[in-house]
């Protein structure tokens, strides 16, 4: 979709969100070989439009949860960058005081309620958050992000069944990036059956869109979130997209042979950030100088966060046995 239908300010903010996620993750990829970030990292480079487009519709009071590939969701929801970087470095100043790492991000003040790396496992928890919010009479929407493999888990179906049963204000966002680690969809799901159709079988409003087109993502999420706020119940959104780098780690891995270089190049042509940038320049929403300024501002912020993370202290031994039980 080349037509820029959203307000200019919305586009500026969404573009910045996407660029910020991209630049943070590229910085992680650059520094990861130093072996100071000693935890698995799952980068979402190439998939930024889904996080940015969905979260642009949420307020701070709304909730977001995610799985193993959660950096983008955390940042798009307003998660603190310094706390995230410190967490990746295992520091006491991290968002989990070093006990979580990249796979367990949280920022309660931003409404990012947590990410955990067991496929589909946060889906029922997000449904429960929506259920609890409803029981407490709170007007909040909960968004749960997950990948294409999550719909192969029984708990996904159990969760969506309950969400429909109780008309819960929860949005299921499936980022279909075609692969689960190295396994393509073709070895995991029957050919010709779209994930969105599977969701429809549960009686939930379900839509499929281009996950690399942020306008489309934004508009579909906007409609779903409005419905949820008005008591219309859950919506399932499937966005097709593509992860550029390896499943886990900082590198490209097209040499492994589980996917082709041409497939990767094709998706790279559809880079959500480059495409939006082109259109923003074309429509004079941003000029080259604006974009350069934005990039250098982000670079400085990221640099600060890295320095903060590197200079922060590690947790002391006394914290090992702390927080086993809540008081």
């Amino acid at each position, binding site marked *: 979709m080349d037509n820029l239908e959203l307000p200019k300010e919305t586009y500026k903010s969404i573009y910045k969100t996407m660029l910020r996620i991209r630049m943070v993750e590229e910085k992680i990829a650059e520094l990861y070989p130093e072996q100071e970030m000693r935890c698995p990292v799952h980068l979402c480079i190439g998939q930024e439009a889904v996080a940015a487009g969905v979260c642009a519709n949420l307020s701070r009071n709304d909730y977001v949860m995610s799985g193993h590939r959660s950096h983008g969701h955390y940042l798009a929801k307003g998660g603190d960058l310094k706390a995230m970087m410190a967490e990746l470095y295992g520091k006491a100043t*991290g*968002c*989990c*005081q*070093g*006990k*979580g790492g990249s796979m*367990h991000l*949280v920022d*309660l003040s931003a409404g990012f*309620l*947590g990410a*955990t790396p*067991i496929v589909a*496992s*946060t*889906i*029922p*928890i*997000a*449904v*429960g*958050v*929506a*259920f*609890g*919010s409803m*029981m*407490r009479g*709170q007007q909040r929407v909960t968004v749960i992000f997950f990948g294409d493999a999550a719909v192969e888990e*029984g*708990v996904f179906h*159990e*969760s969506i*069944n*309950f969400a429909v*049963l109780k008309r819960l204000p929860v949005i299921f966002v499936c980022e279909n990036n075609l692969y689960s680690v190295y396994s393509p969809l073709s070895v995991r799901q029957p050919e010709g059956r779209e994930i969105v159709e599977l969701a429809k079988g549960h009686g939930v409003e379900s839509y499929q869109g281009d996950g690399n087109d942020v306008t489309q993502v934004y508009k579909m999420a906007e409609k779903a979130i409005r419905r949820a706020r008005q008591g219309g119940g859950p919506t399932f959104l499937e966005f097709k997209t593509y992860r550029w780098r390896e499943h886990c780690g900082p590198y490209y891995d097209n040499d492994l042979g589980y996917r082709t270089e041409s497939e990767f190049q094709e998706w790279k042509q559809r880079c959500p950030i480059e495409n939006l940038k082109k259109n923003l320049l074309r429509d004079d929403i941003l000029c080259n100088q604006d974009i350069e300024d934005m990039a250098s501002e982000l670079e400085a912020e990221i640099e600060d966060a890295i320095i903060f993370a590197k200079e922060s202290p590690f947790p002391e031994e006394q914290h090992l046995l*702390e*927080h*086993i*039980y*809540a*008081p």
Partner: protein
Amino acid sequence: MLRKPQEESQIMSRELKYFQAINEAIDLCMTKDATVYIMGLGVPDPKGIFGSTLGLQQKYGSARVMDMPASENAMTGVAIGSALAGMRPIITHQRVDFALLAVEQIVNQAANWHYMFGGQMRIPLVLRMIIGRGWGQGPQHSQNLQAWFAHVPGLKVVMPTTPYDAKGLLVSSIEDNNPVIFIEHRWLYNTIGHVPEEVYRVPLGKARVTRDGNDVTIAATSYMVLEALRAAEMLATDGISAEVIDIRTLRPLDESLILESVGKTGRLIVADTGWKTGGFSAEIVTLVAEEAFSDLKNCPMRVTLPDCPTPTTPALANHYYPRAVHIVATARKMMGLSVDKIVSDMATSVPLDVPDLSFTGPF
């Protein structure tokens, strides 16, 4: 100093059955705190989980006393999520075996959240599970898997024996800010005991001396406490004084009470409702071996289920479940007394697949 339980010194005027004590604990907690809610397969049905949830839906409505889809794993996640949103959920499983469908959420999620998010999140959640026994419950309606749960940091594991403790421990569990595995025993459901009317709490993490003795400590869990008390009676006729400890909370374990008792008796028998290999009984024996080896006059012994699945036919189940006589035989052996007579007493004509003659099945 052995703790003299306060409840024993009270006037035993008001008696309830175990399931009624559980029902009353839930009822009182729901009155006291509007964030408490309960769900489970069959919770509001006419049988009301063997009576333990009867009447609650009439009193608190279907939003707080809910049936649920047969989705144990997702509904555990839903409970966790609702706890994050400020609720205090209770989930009830009619059998421990059914809860195994939810182990992913219990172990990966509920147990870890407080720790792995640096203490920012808490999951107040009670997971009630009932152990079946006898009447052909067989391999998938009677498993005693408390050791699994007790292995996991972040979980608390409670196994009440008496109606008094069932109520007091359940109130404490509901008020606790952590996931609590609350394991009830079907054969305790009709036992009767003193239960005060008001809200009271039995603290988690405290065992209880249910019978004082000097010669041998019998540390028991759940239903095996009753067998241990019967065994202690039988041993007393032979002049052996057995001290019976009701473990009550498996995690966190009341180590000091066990060590104190073994320090006095010098002998330890652990009677657990579970299997032997990797069982919770091993944990208590190890505790004593590591912390009080020099107090021991004899090698500690275990009375547990044999290492095989639960057989269904009463003919085999009679050989499967250890009873008071097995504890007596173990204690006598430890004391250097003959066990011939005891072993011959094990053959009995009383049906062993029911807790008492009032139980006529089916579940």
